[in-house]
Each structure stands twice: as C-alpha cells, then as structure tokens.
C-alpha cells in the first residue's frame, strides 16, 4: 500500500487526517505492524526545543525623515549587521550587548520584540547626498517593523554529542556547566522526536517544506550550515515570520562563561506515504547513539569516552567507568513534545498542509574542517603585480629600453603564446651591449632555465630559492606558466614593519 501526498492533503482538508507525534509511532508500529501503521496514520509530527546559536533575524525599519543610510546599528546596545541596504539589518542571536555583555544579547532582543517589548534602535552613518542624516535613536515595537524575518543558518541538529569533563576544574561551555572529574554529563536534543532523525534520508525535509518555527508557520530553506548527515548530524536552514512567533517557543538564554544563545522550537510534519516512512518514524531513543565527548581537551578533535543512547541520557544516569554519573539535558523534552503536539493540532485543524520539497537536501553530505592556509605570509601578500615582460623575438635594445623605463633589473621573457620561456637581467644586457657582434635578439641572450614561484607558495620557500640559486628575483607564474607577478628581494622588505612581524 502507498498513499500520495495529495491524498493526505485531501484528508487534512476534510478534517479526517490521522496525525500522531513521533513519540507515539514506536508504540503504534509495535501494535499494528508496519502495514497497519501505514493504513492508520497519515502524518507524523516531530519537534525539538533547544539552544540553537546559529539563529537571527532580518529586520526592516522603514525610512526616517530625513532619511539615513544606517551603517552601524545597535538594538538595545546589541550590534546588528548593517552591511545591507539603508534600513535593513541582521540581528544575530549570539551577539552580546556592549553594556551588559553575556547577560543580554541578540537573542534577548529577538525575544523582547516577540514578547511585545519596545527595543531602542541606535544607528550612525557618514551621511550621503541621498541619505543626509547621520544619527538616529528611536524606540521600536515589532509591529513598527515592515519585516522581521527569522532566518537561521543552522538549526535542528539531527543529534548532538554528549559532553563530559575529565579535568580537575569546572568548565563553562556551550554544553553548559561541566563539573570536574566527570562530575556530570550534559546533552542536547529531542531524541526520538527530532525532525531529521525521523527522516534521515531527507525524503520529505527539503526546500519549501512547511514547518513549525517558534510558534509560526515557517519553512525549510534548505540544508543548514555544517550539514553532515553522513555521520548522523544533518542540520536545517529555516525561516519564519517573527510577528507570528510566540515566547513559549522562543527563549533567549545565557550559558554562563560562554555567552548568549537562542532556544528555538522547531517541528517538521512528515507524510506517511509508505512503509519506509513508518519504519523511519518508529525510531526510539534506544536506537539513537551519540559519542560522549571529553570537553577537557581544547581541540577540534576531542576524544570520545564511550557511546551512549538518548535512552541512557534521558534516564538521568550514565555508567562511566563504573561510576553512576548524573546527566543534564540542555534542551527541553517537554517543550519538544509541545512543539510536536501543536503541529499535530494545526494539521488536524487543517491550518497546515504538506508538500514535497521543491529542492531536496543531500542526505550523504559530510562536513569538512576549515581549509587552513599556511600561517606565515605567502608570495601573493608581497609580490609586485606590475610585470614588465618582453617577447623572445624582440631586439636587445628594446629590452634595454624596457629595463630603464620599468625601473627593474629583471625581464621575464615570454613566447608568442604569452608563456614564460626565459629571463634577462641588466647584467645580461650589459654583456650583450659590450659584445654587440655576438647577438641581436632577446632569445639569444636570455637564461632559459628560470626559477619560478607561485602566488600561494610560502614566502619562506621563495626566499629559500633566492638563496639557493643566488638570484634576486622570481617570476610568479600560474598553472599555465603565465607570469602574473614578480617577487624580488626588494619585495621582501615589505615583510619588515608590516603586518607579518608582530
């Protein structure tokens, strides 16, 4: 048996759709079997409520009189990004207040707006002919904004590793307070209620799909940043209208000693069209495993002490090397349930229908670490991009004139295709002028074996070449052997007193 999304939507419109939460599914499947559950259930709702730092909102304030092109913007002393059009800004959840530090931040501004409180906008500008005003201060309510669109780059992690601390001091992390000597374990995530966990192949979670976002009817934009479903860590980028949101599902928070974050409530409805959906939504806390990570190691590659399931974590104690260690959740399972139940209610009432993603999300992607470039300066940081070159068939006299005019001692020689074939120096020219009968063209006197460098090579390597070959300049070439710049001993002087020596 198979159902189509259209059939399910028709049932939603008729008020006959049978909607259950993901928490109910394992029981239903155990009782009715997969086929029975498929026949019985039309929609499974999911939900999660936890700290999601990668959140924020685009705000449009409308134009003032006289108008201002806001360059730097503060909302209740929290800086918002103003590198957008004149009266647009992005307030990020983790940005901290200039006056209250971690006690107040972007997340609090967003919560204050949603709860109906006035927020003070301050902005400054250089002033332009079209936007003469230089400063503005005003109090704004959410209703005064033209748009207030939440747009969160990374929400709803499929699961999250649990945290512990093996050091002898208390750690303050984004995973909360971690007591010394493995004194406690913290974890986050809704386990069996989590949206992506119930659709790990991302068959129904993708661009354009309607969701519950902080009490509003929002939408999935696409894959979230750091999306890594290959290892079980898929994420979503989502959007919703701040004006429809509720404080019940949106809360600012402070992780002591770490900073400000936003608790976001998010749920996705999943259509039960085949037994594969039934099987995926029957996932239990016992089936979802995460690593218990030692946050005492200050590295990207923190060691995992053991594997734990959400069932163990939620039980309140985890056995670690023979000790019973107590656990703390940082996300709220009770509110996650409330998200899934509210979403269920919406669909039963017919106020939300389902759809197939307009663009799917890659279920196999794997996040990569940062591409780190060499720490020291590279050739491109100091090379001279003004290249004076000469053709191999030019006369030596022309080369002499170019050297004089270009105020340089080195002329890279190029062929008719523009590729590097040799190099001539003032010494080579002098020698040729002193013995005029021997040669008349550049190609006759040039050095054909040219030592070169590339723009992304470390300066230290290029310097080594200069020393090794006892030369004072290196042509900088691209992959096709075109000369893009020159690196001379003089350019190395830029390193001194510059930003590379501190």
């Amino acid at each position, binding site marked *: 048996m198979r159902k189509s999304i259209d059939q399910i939507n028709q049932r939603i419109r008729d008020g006959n759709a049978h909607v259950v939460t993901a928490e109910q599914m394992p029981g239903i499947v155990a009782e009715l079997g997969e086929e029975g559950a498929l026949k019985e259930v039309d929609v499974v709702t999911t939900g999660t409520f936890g700290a999601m730092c990668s959140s924020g909102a685009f705000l449009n304030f409308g134009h003032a009189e006289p108008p201002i092109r806001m360059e730097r913007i503060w909302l209740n002393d929290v800086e918002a990004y103003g590198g957008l059009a004149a009266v647009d800004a992005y307030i990020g959840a983790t940005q901290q207040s200039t006056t209250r530090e971690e006690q107040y931040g972007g997340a609090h501004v967003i919560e204050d707006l949603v709860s109906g409180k006035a927020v003070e906008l301050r902005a400054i500008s250089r002033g332009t002919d079209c936007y003469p005003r230089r400063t503005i201060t005003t109090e704004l309510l959410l209703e005064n904004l033209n748009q207030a669109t939440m747009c969160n780059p990374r929400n709803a992690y499929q699961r999250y590793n649990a945290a512990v601390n093996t050091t002898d001091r208390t750690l303050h992390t984004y995973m909360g307070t971690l007591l010394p000597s493995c*004194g406690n374990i913290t974890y986050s995530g809704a386990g069996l209620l989590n949206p992506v966990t119930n659709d790990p192949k991302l068959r129904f979670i993708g661009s354009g799909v309607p969701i519950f976002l902080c009490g509003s009817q929002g939408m999935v934009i696409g894959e979230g940043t750091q999306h890594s479903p290959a290892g079980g860590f898929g994420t979503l980028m989502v959007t919703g209208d701040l004006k429809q949101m509720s404080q019940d599902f949106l*809360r600012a928070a402070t*992780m002591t000693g770490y900073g400000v974050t936003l608790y976001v409530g998010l749920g996705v409805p999943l259509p039960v069209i085949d037994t594969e959906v039934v099987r995926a939504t029957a996932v239990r806390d016992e089936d979802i495993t995460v690593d218990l990570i030692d946050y005492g190691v200050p590295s990207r590659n923190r060691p995992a002490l053991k594997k734990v399931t959400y069932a163990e974590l939620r039980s309140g104690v985890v056995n670690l090397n023979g000790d019973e260690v*107590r656990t703390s959740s*940082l996300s*709220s399972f*009770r509110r996650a349930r409330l998200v899934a139940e509210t979403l269920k209610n919406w669909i039963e009432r017919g106020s939300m229908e389902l759809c197939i993603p307009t663009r799917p999300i890659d279920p196999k992607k794997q996040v990569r670490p940062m591409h780190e470039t060499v720490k020291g300066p590279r050739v491109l940081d100091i090379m001279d991009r003004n290249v004076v070159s000469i053709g191999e068939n030019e006369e030596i006299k022309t080369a002499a004139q170019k050297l004089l005019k270009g105020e340089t001692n080195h002329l890279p020689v190029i062929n008719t295709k523009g590729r590097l074939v040799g190099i001539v120096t003032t010494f080579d020219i002098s020698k040729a002028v002193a013995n005029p009968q021997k040669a008349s063209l550049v190609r006759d006197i040039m050095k054909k074996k040219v030592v070169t460098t590339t723009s992304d090579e470390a300066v230290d390597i290029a310097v080594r070449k200069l020393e090794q070959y006892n030369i004072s300049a290196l042509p900088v070439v691209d992959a096709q052997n075109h000369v893009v710049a020159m690196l001379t001993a003089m350019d190395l002087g830029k390193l001194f007193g510059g930003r590379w020596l501190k």
Partner: protein
Amino acid sequence: MKLLVNFSRGKGRKPIIAQVVRDTGVLINVERAVIDSSEGEALIDVPDDACRLVRDRMADLGATVRILEHGVSLDESECVDCGACISICPREVFSFDTDFRLHVVEERCILCGKCMEACPHHALTLPV
C-alpha cells in the same frame, strides 16, 4: 528546618556548634560552612521541634541566627524545563516528573547557588 548561622571569630573562637549540641542534646547536621579568619557562616539542619531551642542557645553564645523558610526558588515563567540544573545540584533538589516537568524539592536545598549559575534562563534565585 534549616538555620543560617553567622558568627564572628574575633573573640575567643568559641566552638559554638559543638557547645550547642552538648548543651541542648540536639543533633545538628552541618550542610555547608564557609569560615575564614574573621567570620564564619554555617548552614545547619535541625529537627523542626528543636529549631527554636537551638536558635536561642546560639544567639546566647553570640551568633546571629536566621531560620530559613525557603531554599532556591523557581520562576516558572522563565523555566523551560531543560534540566541543566539537575546534574549540577549536590543535593538532588531537582528532578523531572513523569511529564518531564522540572520538580523542585526545596527542603533539600543548601543554598549553594550552583544551579543559579548553571541555569541558562535565569529561572532560579536564592532568598536574600
């Protein structure tokens, strides 16, 4: 019942708690104590019916005694029932009920304040 005892160590450094135990015969449980060179503060637990007896005797010996009616208090409008406090508390004041709602057993609280710091939502406060 819990009593918060403050005493100066300026004169004679009298063993006030031991003295009161001997004088009254009431068994005192010291739950938390901070003592430095000039003063000390101890949180003690005594049976309810002996509370006044202990308080009066300690006051006689020069200590300032306050009966603590309340432990940590939870602001339900701020709490989201995350449970960050549960594993932090040394006295297991916090737990989840069957609906994953945070349950607080105030009587166990020794006012150490660790939970206040760990609460991401500023939902916990100590009585002043």
